[in-house]
């Protein structure tokens, strides 16, 4: 019997044991974003017809929290294990590269989805949202969290110190999330920045996710799903390759 289940369980237990920090805090942060941006921008931005700015904002902020927390889970688990040295307890058992990859990825997705659920659970009482198509919501939640969970593994494997991980997070993940249309519709941008946005895989995760609620989006949800899935697939292949080679793990 394989140890995959235990590794997944351990990775979930790891964040669950500190859930104030890993679940409650990001939910609260998201609510604060909602409060502040809603107050500042509510009168100025009309993104979709028939949708208030507050409503428009919620799926975007929820997805942003999901993406960031999926990334944080795998990356922080790996860098902590590497720096404290307890990564040996993962490297000595008979795990295949695929098992290590899948366990870290799925645990990241679980955290992302738990945080996302928390955001909706906290806001649904105040600002009800339409749920146009739950299948699209689920699909983009899964692909978005998966994409960032994989990026988290890459960052965790590559980083040798917290500073490098912080660089990855602040200079790559944060700009990509903030410029992915969380706070605005892409159509409000000048043509050049619209084109740039279309290179950002995070944009498709957020745009498609929103489509699941409102039935409206900047690009077709099928195109979004294709782009986001392609990014997820490519990142997964790269991650698997790195783990199989033992890149920065097995010297």
């Amino acid at each position, binding site marked *: 019997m394989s140890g995959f289940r235990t590794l997944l369980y351990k990775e979930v237990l790891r964040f669950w044991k500190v859930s104030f920090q890993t679940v409650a805090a990001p939910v609260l942060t998201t609510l604060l974003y909602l409060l502040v941006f809603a107050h500042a921008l509510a009168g100025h931005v009309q993104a979709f017809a028939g949708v208030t700015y507050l409503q428009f904002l919620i799926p975007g902020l929820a997805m942003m929290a999901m993406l960031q927390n999926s990334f944080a889970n795998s990356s922080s688990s790996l860098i902590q294990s590497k720096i404290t040295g307890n990564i040996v307890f993962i490297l000595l*058992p008979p795990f295949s590269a695929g098992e290590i990859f899948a366990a870290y990825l799925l645990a990241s997705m679980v955290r992302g989805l738990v945080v996302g659920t928390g955001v909706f659970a906290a806001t649904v009482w105040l600002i009800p949202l339409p749920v146009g198509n739950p299948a699209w919501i689920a699909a983009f939640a899964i692909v978005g969290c998966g994409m960032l969970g994989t990026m988290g593994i890459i960052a965790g494997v590559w980083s040798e110190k917290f500073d490098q991980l912080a660089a990855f997070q602040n200079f790559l993940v944060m700009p990509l999330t903030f410029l992915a249309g969380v706070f605005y519709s892409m159509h409000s941008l000048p043509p050049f920045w619209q084109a740039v946005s279309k290179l950002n895989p995070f944009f498709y995760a957020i745009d498609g996710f929103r489509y699941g609620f409102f039935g409206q989006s900047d690009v077709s949800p099928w195109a979004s799903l294709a782009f986001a899935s392609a990014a997820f697939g490519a990142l997964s292949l790269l991650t698997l390759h790195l783990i199989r080679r033992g890149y920065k793990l097995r010297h």
Partner: protein
Amino acid sequence: MSDAAGGLAVEARDVHKRYGAVPALCGVSLEVGKGEFFGLLGPNGAGKTTLISALGGLVRADRGSLAIMGHDVQRDFRLARRAVGIVPQEIVFDPFFTVRETLEIQSGYFGLRRNGAWIDELLERLALQSKAGANMRSLSGGMKRRVMVAQALVHRPPVIVLDEPTAGVDVELRQTLWAFVRGLNAAGHTIVLTTHYLEEAQQLCSRIAMMKDGRIVALGSTASLLAEFSERVLRVKLEKGGLPAPLAAGAALEATGWWRIPIADVAHVEDALRTMREAGAAVASLEVAEPELEEVFVKIMRREEAAAR
């Protein structure tokens, strides 16, 4: 001991490893038979930990092959890793979990779901029962070390590798640990041990390899290494008179004023004393020093240094 086909617990064939430009292993070949208590000795930086890491798959050899219980550590990594339990040299732990959780999780990594009885036994034999529910962070260094030993044993591996398990550990724990490891060896487990405490190695290990600069520089049974490189010595301090010429020929004078006179066996002590008495030398104190692994170690390391010059 190690010639029967399939009778090997550990087999290293011409293993090479470099870290960048720095060579760590330069063609190490080694066989450890099943059931042996094997010592791997050498100064810091000799390559012992690299060799052990390569056995556990933590390090990939550039060239050569390694096998545990006949399973190649790269090709048959699943079987090889099931067959070995490694206690790393550095104290490491996961601060998120208690002692029992740590051991249950480690069991699960090997696919063992209901391992409670064995975990209880390990906790008892390593004197950790009272700490089973304590968080790893709250444990002393010695206790963390014992948990690491338990972690390496959760899957009952036939081969157990201990990389300096007693470094910085108090005497009582050291004795508990050795009694436990001896018991495992008596039950048929193969033990590979590295230590800087050569007395321990001499008492425990039936065979020894000495490493220096990534090479094996001596390999043999503990008894044969002692016989070849160390000797029984009669140490005497004289009250008056000099050491008679027949004895002085082979003897050495220590800085403390003690003479060291090599003797083949204890019966020769009487002969030496008679020679001194007849020559009028009066003995103030005397002792017989048995052969020591430390002397073997020092001689071999000096020989290697001289050869390298």
